[in-house]
């Protein structure tokens, strides 16, 4: 036998005749933690950066982590480390946690949109044999919410219900049917209130606003949050060369994860709560449980089960988690609550239904002189992440283009519907679609190619957006160029026959949020990772990062394996329990890979340094000239001189026992000082560009997307297989939103499609072929250069499809989703307007380049060189948004530009011309009304 094989059980051979293989079969070529043959795998130079002597290309030059690369595993396409559990059915999701003696919990939900609870009589419920515990809102009066500034939720309604499906009470019984029957025995007296469904109505005063914020409440409206932001010189937009104005209606969409919410709560004999829940953000649940239950956090252990998809929909602390804990406390037995699919829609937290108005202008040189965005978003019954969403709808449109000015008004209103919240591409998706379609329209007015328009207006790497975001690495240009080439854009755009079209869309997204939600970033790091290595050589990594299928556990294992040059099978990541994991903020804002992998690298370096020190003592060579490779540490110039990993480990452990190290990550201080400056701040940003091809049936309005070229700049693909999976999966979700998915509220405000049959998620047949293109710009602060790949890739697909539809039929559509009825009526309107008879008479749009085209191409070419130098840090001069307009980046813009304004409140004279959401600024907060009185 040439090598040592680790086999579960006593399996005679690795591959059998029928092709079945041993699960987790691993070959461990010694030397190392096992065998005896003195043979080491050669270093994999293809995966060692060229900057440190390998062959991996480094287009952006040196990276701080290059020296920590060992060529072991980073950059290689590998399966997720937990995939064997998933393919054998052994992965344990929320409802798979079965504790002995468990009771089944059920939740009583409101049948009314908006009503006051005058009384609840539970006596008939309690009398039902088999019911063990009953609870109502009175048992848990403390409020909670994911954001500390907007805690407006209760475990169960305390005085009012705010939407159909809102929690009223809960029961625990010996079995499901008893629990369901018990729900029918509550006697409740209701006083119905006047509901609000239309977000525009939410801007008006109401007798009984859905929530009351005291002196901060805006008049008597249902506005939860209003935002005003203005940067730059607004006089630029007065005399536009081209202008686009689009009013959009985007319906709400849901995450549609396959696993319905489920939770199991159990108070152990010591009185500690053990709560099992599929959570993206276990730590916030931990905090909220502590508040609601009046129990200190250290008496609660939150166990994150496997998560059957999150996409933002499992990132709030949820009332049913509180209910399970309350029922378990009352009954003294474990309680399991599992949602059915309908309940998943009642708790919602999906993408906000939005009315978005985007005006934009360009000047005679094809520069974008201004964006003017107005976003009115429908928050539903609770705040959730809405405070942040209100900002994101504007500020996440400030890149990747250089802008002359930026103006944003946003408002989020409460309505009597299930709460909207964070969903993949949080807050950025809808505005991004509107903006990218606007650019397409302006390109058409100027007779230029929309890709060239974009290429001539990009912010370079290492620059600053108009709102002050710090852009570091930036692969936007390469992404655009690669999709242009891949899709043969130049021979297709505006040249395809009627009914066939091709379109472009871009996007950028935050890679981690610069400010943690719950604490002062100056005091605590964003992410912490602990590593422990004991005598057997196995490496245990403790992190709180919540793997929701995106592969964060794999990413953490990978970077540790890379630094220590160990096979990934020797790395064991423990991330399920709050008892054993360092606090982590959770899986949102695409922060996990960036922040946790960074922390993990630091911790692994801590272990490595202890090993190298031991090897130094043993070999007499300084760590600087020692090389780690495949469980061996050896002298750089004579590989024969070395020690095995275990020898070094045991030496290092001689006096101390197990090696321990920890690493932490904190994002650098960044950003401006204006109100809301923190929203959208991130240590790095990802960029993407997509081209989509569609077929539109001009008779029926049915759209099918046939091909997508999707280029995403993820900095560095730690695991290209997973990155491509994220890109393709994002396309799928975005296609759903643009083509079929919508939450339909009927005339009575009732959600009509709370099931997967009527809520139409694309099936395998609706999925186009996606050519996933990975762009690597190597972020200076990312772990080995990596940035996010989970959310950003969703943004460009929507506008790419909408633009392609225009290319196919010459009709601009601005109601999402583009279901056949929307397209059909768009076509009919177009026919009427142009005096045409039949859809076949429509002329596909065509492009003949105007004089501006040449100017843009020349500018794009010039900027390509500029970007290359900046990317490689050969040009390190300052660059801020505005340089394209001739301003000096080294002096404050306010000194150079007359009329430069940086404002978070409208001027009195602006009040008259504000858009829908902007009208929230016509109202006053209660405290100021009192001043006036």
């Amino acid at each position, binding site marked *: 036998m040439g090598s040592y094989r680790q086999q579960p059980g006593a399996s005679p051979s690795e591959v059998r005749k029928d092709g079945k293989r041993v699960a987790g079969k691993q070959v461990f070529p010694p030397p190392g933690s096992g065998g005896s043959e003195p*043979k080491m795998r050669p270093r994999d130079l293809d995966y060692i950066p060229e900057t440190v002597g390998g062959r991996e290309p480094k287009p952006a030059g040196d990276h701080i982590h290059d020296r920590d690369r060992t060529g072991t595993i980073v950059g290689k396409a590998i399966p997720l480390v937990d995939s064997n559990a998933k*393919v054998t059915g052994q992965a344990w999701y929320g409802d798979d946690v079965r504790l002995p003696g468990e009771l089944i919990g059920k939740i009583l939900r409101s049948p009314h949109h908006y009503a006051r609870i005058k009384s609840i009589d539970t006596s008939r419920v309690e009398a039902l044999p*088999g019911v063990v515990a009953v609870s109502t809102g009175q048992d848990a009066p403390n409020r909670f919410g994911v954001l500390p500034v907007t805690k407006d939720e209760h475990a169960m309604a305390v005085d009012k219900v705010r939407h159909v499906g809102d929690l009223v009470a809960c029961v625990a019984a010996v079995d499901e049917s*008893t629990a369901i029957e018990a729900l029918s025995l509550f006697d409740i007296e209701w006083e119905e209130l006047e509901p609000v469904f239309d977000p525009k109505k939410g801007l008006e005063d109401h007798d009984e606003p859905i929530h009351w914020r005291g002196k901060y409440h805006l008049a008597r409206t249902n506005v939860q949050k209003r935002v005003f932001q203005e940067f730059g010189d607004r006089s630029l937009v007065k005399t536009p060369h081209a202008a686009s104005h689009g009013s959009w209606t985007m319906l709400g969409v849901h995450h549609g994860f*396959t696993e319905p919410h489920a939770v199991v709560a159990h108070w152990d004999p010591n009185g500690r709560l053990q709560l099992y829940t599929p959570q993206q953000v276990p730590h916030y649940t931990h905090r909220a449980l502590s508040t609601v239950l009046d129990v200190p956090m250290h008496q609660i252990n939150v166990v994150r089960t496997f998560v059957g998809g999150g996409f933002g929909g499992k990132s709030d602390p949820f009332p049913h988690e509180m209910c399970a804990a309350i029922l378990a406390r009352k009954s003294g037995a474990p309680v399991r609550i599992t949602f059915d699919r309908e309940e998943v829609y009642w708790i919602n937290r999906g993408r906000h239904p939005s009315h978005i108005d985007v005006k934009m202008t360009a000047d005679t040189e094809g520069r974008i002189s201004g964006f003017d965005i107005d976003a009115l978003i429908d928050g539903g019954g609770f705040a959730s992440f809405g405070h942040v969403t209100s900002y994101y709808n504007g500020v996440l449109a400030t890149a990747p283009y250089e802008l002359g000015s930026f103006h944003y008004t946003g408002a989020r209103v409460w309505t009597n519907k299930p709460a909207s919240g964070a969903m993949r591409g949080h807050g950025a998706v809808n505005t991004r679609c509107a903006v990218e379609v606007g650019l397409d329209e302006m390109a058409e007015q100027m007779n230029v190619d929309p890709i060239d328009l974009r290429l001539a207006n990009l912010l370079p790497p290492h620059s600053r957006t108009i709102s002050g975001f710090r852009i570091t690495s930036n692969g936007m240009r390469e992404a655009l160029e690669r999709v242009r080439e891949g899709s043969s854009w130049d021979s297709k755009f505006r040249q395809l026959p009627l009914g066939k079209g091709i379109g472009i869309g871009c996007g950028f997204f935050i890679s981690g949020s610069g400010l943690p939600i719950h604490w002062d970033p100056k005091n605590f790091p964003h992410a912490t990772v602990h590593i422990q290595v004991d005598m057997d050589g196995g490496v245990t990594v403790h992190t709180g990062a919540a793997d929701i299928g995106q592969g964060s556990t794999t990413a953490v294992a990978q970077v540790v394996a890379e630094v220590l040059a160990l096979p990934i099978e020797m790395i064991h990541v423990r991330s399920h329990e709050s008892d054993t994991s360092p606090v982590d903020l959770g899986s949102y804002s695409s922060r996990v890979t960036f922040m946790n992998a960074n922390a993990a690298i630091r911790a692994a370096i801590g272990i490595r340094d202890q090993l190298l020190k031991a090897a130094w003592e043993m070999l007499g060579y300084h760590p600087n000239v020692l090389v780690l490779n495949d469980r061996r540490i050896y002298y750089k110039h004579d590989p024969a001189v070395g020690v095995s990993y275990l020898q070094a480990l045991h030496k290092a452990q001689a006096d101390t026992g197990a090696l321990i190290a920890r690493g932490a990550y904190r994002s650098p201080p960044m950003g401006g000082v204006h109100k809301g400056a923190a929203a959208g701040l991130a240590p790095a940003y990802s960029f993407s560009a997509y081209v989509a091809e569609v077929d539109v049936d001009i008779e029926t309005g049915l759209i099918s997307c046939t091909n997508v070229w999707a280029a995403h700049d993820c900095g560095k693909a730690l695991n290209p297989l997973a990155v491509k999976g994220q890109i393709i999966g994002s396309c799928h979700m975005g296609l759903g939103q643009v083509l079929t998915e919508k939450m339909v509220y009927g005339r009575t405000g009732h959600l009509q499609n709370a099931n997967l049959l009527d809520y139409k998620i694309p099936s395998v047949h609706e999925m186009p072929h996606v050519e996933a293109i990975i762009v690597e710009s190597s972020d200076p602060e990312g772990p080995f250069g990596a940035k996010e790949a989970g959310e950003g890739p969703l943004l460009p697909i929507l506008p790419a499809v909408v633009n392609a539809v225009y290319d196919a039929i010459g009709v601009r559509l601005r109601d999402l989703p583009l279901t056949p009825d929307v397209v059909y009526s768009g076509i009919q309107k177009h026919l009427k307007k142009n005096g045409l008879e039949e859809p076949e008479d429509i002329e596909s749009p065509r492009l003949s380049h105007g004089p501006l085209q040449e100017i843009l191409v020349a500018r794009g070419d010039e900027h390509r060189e500029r970007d290359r130098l900046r990317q490689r840090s050969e040009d390190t001069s300052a660059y801020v948004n505005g340089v394209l307009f001739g301003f000096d980046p080294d002096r404050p813009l306010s000194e150079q530009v007359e009329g430069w304004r940086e404002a978070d409140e409208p001027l009195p004279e602006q009040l008259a011309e504000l858009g829908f959401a902007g009208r929230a600024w016509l109202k006053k907060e209660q405290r100021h009304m009192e001043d006036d009185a």
Partner: protein
Amino acid sequence: MVGEEHVSMIPAPAGKRWAATVNGRPFEVLAPSNAVLLDVLRDKVGTLGVKRGCDLGTCGCCTVMIDGVPKLSCLTLAGQVQGADIITVEGLSDGAHLAPIQTCFATHGGSQCGFCTPGFLVASQALLNENENPTRQEIACAIEGNLCRCTGYQQIIDSIEAAAAIHRGESETLAPASEPHPDPHPSGPGEPTMPPGHAK
């Protein structure tokens, strides 16, 4: 949904004897006569790998093989399949030996969050039992009843194709198709391997 019968009954009605072969082992449990197969499998037989995503026949997470045919266990009454031969995801592997379809789902990115995976695996194993050489279109038809929100299906189809190749005996290799860095210098210098007896 709730019948009178539950009012005074603790514990729940013991129900009828239900017997079937699940993953090659005979099972006999007591289940109410209106019990749904999905519930019996999860709650009584203990095959928690069978997932419940919707209860309405719309997600495919609950797919199991009944006498070789993939069916939705949430739409099947347990009573209908008395004595049948049922295979769940737990029955695809043989002890520690994973079926090619399982390995390929791992190596080709067919599983992200993994919740839909059991259903996909059963549906695609059923396809491969019938057809060792399916086209991408045939694969798509075999999994059209399964919903995946994570992967966008493309890597699932890749996985099934790869497994089919193993079934046909054409492929041994489990490496995923995508290689991130095509080697720019294929014949570049290697590093020395360790000679024996090296350590100081």
